[in-house]
């Protein structure tokens, strides 16, 4: 039974039993996060510039790398965990991610449809070319 009395503030390193089992020091947590972030960033720049990969898949690959790096930042720098003292932080984050997805994916979806269905021809009514 690990009933925690209070929630842990976001950005604070969680010192639950689970966290203490890991042998990483606080300094080690930041350093591991930094190394992972540098690696993911380097891979992103490499993927964007290489001709080795199938070109149409590169954009999706870059999005996946960005999601991975966001995860690294959240876990190692912002110390968001799945522990019981972090429930409120995770729920707020989940709601934020939901709204962000609705805004970004919804806008992209609608704008693509508009471009494809409502435009008689590229020259005649291309919103993209309007000044």
């Amino acid at each position: 039974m690990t009933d925690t009395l209070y929630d842990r503030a976001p950005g604070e390193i969680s010192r639950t039993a689970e966290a203490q089992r890991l042998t990483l020091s606080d300094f080690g947590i930041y350093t591991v996060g930094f190394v992972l972030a540098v690696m993911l960033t380097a891979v992103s720049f490499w993927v964007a510039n290489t001709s080795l990969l199938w070109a149409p898949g590169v954009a999706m690959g870059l999005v996946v790398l960005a999601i991975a790096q966001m995860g690294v930042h959240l876990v190692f720098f912002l110390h968001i965990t799945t522990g019981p003292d972090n429930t409120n932080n995770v729920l707020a984050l989940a709601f934020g991610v939901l709204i962000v997805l609705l805004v970004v994916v919804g806008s992209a979806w609608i704008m693509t449809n508009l471009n494809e269905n409502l435009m008689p021809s590229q020259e005649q009514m291309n919103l993209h070319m309007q000044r």
Partner: protein
Amino acid sequence: MTVADAVYDAKQDAFAPTSEAGPAAKRVVVAFGFWVFLLSDIVMFSALFAAYAALVRATAGGPTGAELFNQVNVAVQTACLLISSYTCGLMSLAVSARQRLNTYIFALVTFVLGAAFLYLEVHEFANMIARGAAPQRSAFLSAFFTLVGCHGLHVTAGLIWLAVMMAQVEFKGFRPSVDRRLLCFALFWHALDIIWVWLFTAVYLIGIRP
């Protein structure tokens, strides 16, 4: 460690039902409130990202991203912000350990790297405007300057905040109110780095693909 923190930690170890816990510590409430603000800030950025994605091809015959962006510049900017995020984390550790000198050193490194990032960004903007790629040139450039400029404004605010916090550490010491503000600052700075990850991915790497 403050008395409040010690009491808080002691209570964390005790196994009592949540209903008997009483109100959460002020540190938790303040940081959670700031966390909610940061998430709403990210929602605002998502609208700017969506606008950019919708307008990225709307160049009105003007310059495109592929012609304007310099990837070396972006890589250096990314390195600056990423290392400053790391040193900001080390500063947080120094604050927890009440090491005043280390706090100042890591804050200084964070500040210098943030300022270098900002310098590169202003330099890039000035170059673009000098080449006729100002915000009024096309919808694409309006969206670009709004999105990237908004992040730059956040970094500027972060730098001012960091300088103010160091003055507070100097003159007020590590009292609980200063501690809470430093915790919020660290959250802010790390969140800015997350937004930059999406910026360099969406604008500078994906946005320039044909």
